């Protein structure tokens, strides 16, 4: 069977859930071979990747990779397309993932499809476009298909394999080292699940009224083991940190359950949550467009409805 190259998405030694989803998806196409860029790949991470079916974990850890974003990764992916001749390359649909994929596509003369939600054994890709209103099947017609996959689209399922680690060294050109990382600011993420990975997302908008109001949203989130999201109105006002913004210019989420509280449902907000499986809305304005997406909606004040809901959930557990 041929290899399928999977670019691991990770934060230091923490494997992102999307990586396991990619490895799972890759199994339908061939032998998943994971590429791990940078440090943090431990015996445990190799074992975890193997548990989802990875046959090999290629580790490229060097100063060139660690100190310069995107371009070195693209060179390594391009060189592996050359040497491994994989049947496809799967990458996470994140900012970095898409850019590594884009540059590698040009380098290797390969077509690219972004934001896949499903990949068939023949590499035909399913995409959900225009806010989920249209389902498209596409395929790459030139070179090795490079496919970026949306988080939370392919459920990760184990299929144990004893993966082996292989350290690789790829010469990185001077050209790929022209952007230098001077400093990294990592905002503490707290104990809640990652926004793009969470099964349940509880969001607050302008209706939350201020930073204090978010405690109501957080309590509901905690009763459901959910991530907290926010509309741009709430993040721009400084009520909640920017990295929790959901929407066109924030994160795209696709959870089992999305609860929108005090959010009107502007098109830019919908763009980031429209593919959620079940949508619940609390808003005091019955005309708010977000109700069009609701599987269940309550017209009411979030400050009475939301605490009651949290209490009820805790009671029923």
């Amino acid at each position, binding site marked *: 069977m041929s290899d399928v190259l999977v670019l691991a998405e990770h934060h230091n030694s923490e494997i992102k859930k999307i990586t396991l989803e990619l490895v799972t998806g890759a199994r339908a196409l061939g032998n998943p071979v994971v590429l791990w860029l940078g440090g943090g790949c431990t015996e445990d991470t190799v074992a975890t990747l193997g548990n989802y079916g990875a046959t090999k974990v290629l580790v490229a850890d060097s100063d060139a990779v660690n100190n310069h974003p995107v371009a070195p990764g693209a060179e390594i992916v391009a060189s592996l397309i050359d040497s491994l001749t994989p049947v496809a390359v799967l990458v996470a649909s994140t900012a970095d993932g898409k850019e590594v994929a884009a540059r590698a596509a*040009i380098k290797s003369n390969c077509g690219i499809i972004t934001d896949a939600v499903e990949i068939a054994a023949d590499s035909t890709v399913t995409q959900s476009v225009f806010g989920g*209103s249209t389902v498209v099947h596409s395929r790459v017609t030139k070179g090795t298909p490079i496919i970026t996959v949306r988080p939370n689209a392919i459920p990760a399922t184990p299929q144990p394999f004893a993966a082996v680690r292989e350290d690789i060294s790829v010469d990185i050109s001077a050209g790929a080292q022209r952007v230098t990382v001077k400093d990294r600011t990592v905002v503490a993420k707290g104990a809640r699940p990652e926004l793009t990975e969470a099964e349940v997302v509880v969001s607050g908008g302008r209706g939350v009224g201020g930073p204090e109001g978010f405690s109501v949203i957080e309590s509901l989130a905690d009763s459901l083991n959910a991530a907290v999201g926010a509309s741009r109105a709430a993040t721009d006002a400084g009520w909640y940190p920017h990295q929790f913004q959901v929407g066109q210019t924030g994160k795209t989420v696709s959870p089992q359950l999305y609860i929108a509280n005090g959010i009107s449902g502007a098109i830019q907000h919908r763009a980031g949550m429209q593919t959620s499986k079940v949508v619940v809305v609390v808003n005091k304005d019955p005309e708010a467009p977000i109700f069009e997406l609701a599987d269940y909606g309550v017209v009411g004040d979030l400050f009475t409805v939301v605490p009651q809901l949290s209490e009820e959930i805790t009671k029923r557990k």
Partner: protein
Amino acid sequence: MGNIDLQSVWSDVERVNNVKIAVCVKQVPDTWAEKKLRDADSRLDRESADGVLNELDEYAVEQALQLVEAAGGEVVVVTMGPERAGETLRKAISMGADAGIHIVDDNLGGSDAIATSAVLAKALSGRDFDLILFGSESTDARMSVIPAMVAERLDLPQVTFAQKVEISGSELTVERVTEYGFDLLSTQLPAVVSVVEKINEPRYPSFKGIMAAKKKPVEILTVADLGLEPSVVGASGAWSEVADFAARPPKAAGVVVTDEGDGGVKIADFLTSQKII
């Protein structure tokens, strides 16, 4: 390209250096319009909706104008698109840009990101731009790959998702939004940058700007003018294709109730019925 008398435009500004900036802008269907694919060729139906300037590109235009206001220089807006994308280019110019480049050609229909990036890169090359700015994504395609592809084709460093951009001499410093916070990055010009919407507040074109835009030079280029083979653009230059598509049946209308003191309990009942709790 029409010669712009920079001396007279910028003589009263203390110049740190002169930056020549290109901004790539795209015409997209109106944000609120319902978007559809055409049955005949699986392409986005652009005729059925008003075309507007991709709102994320407004931030790129604004950033270019601010950089040039501070450092002196020139802003050229660049678009690839059908005839009517010219209106969008004029809108971007009316914000204050100096000139435009419009690549328009019937052979371009059906271009994917690979083909689009080939055209933009060719149009941008050899013009000595110090900085090439992009929006972070187009609201119709939503791929966010064109900036990286253009950078690759032009062999330029690329810094994307910038929430802050500073130029000092030939050094470019950028705060790049990441999944976890932000990175402080630096590189040398020339470079490719895409900006996020947090970076600034785009200005509205002034009446004066709109009038002035009518007289500013717009270079119209065809695929042949660029020296590109027709086979590398449009549907024949695309390295991906849509096999088929279908409208997803509209979601069944949900239940909406008015809170009568038990709204929270009712949602809990609903979640229980969905086996979520």
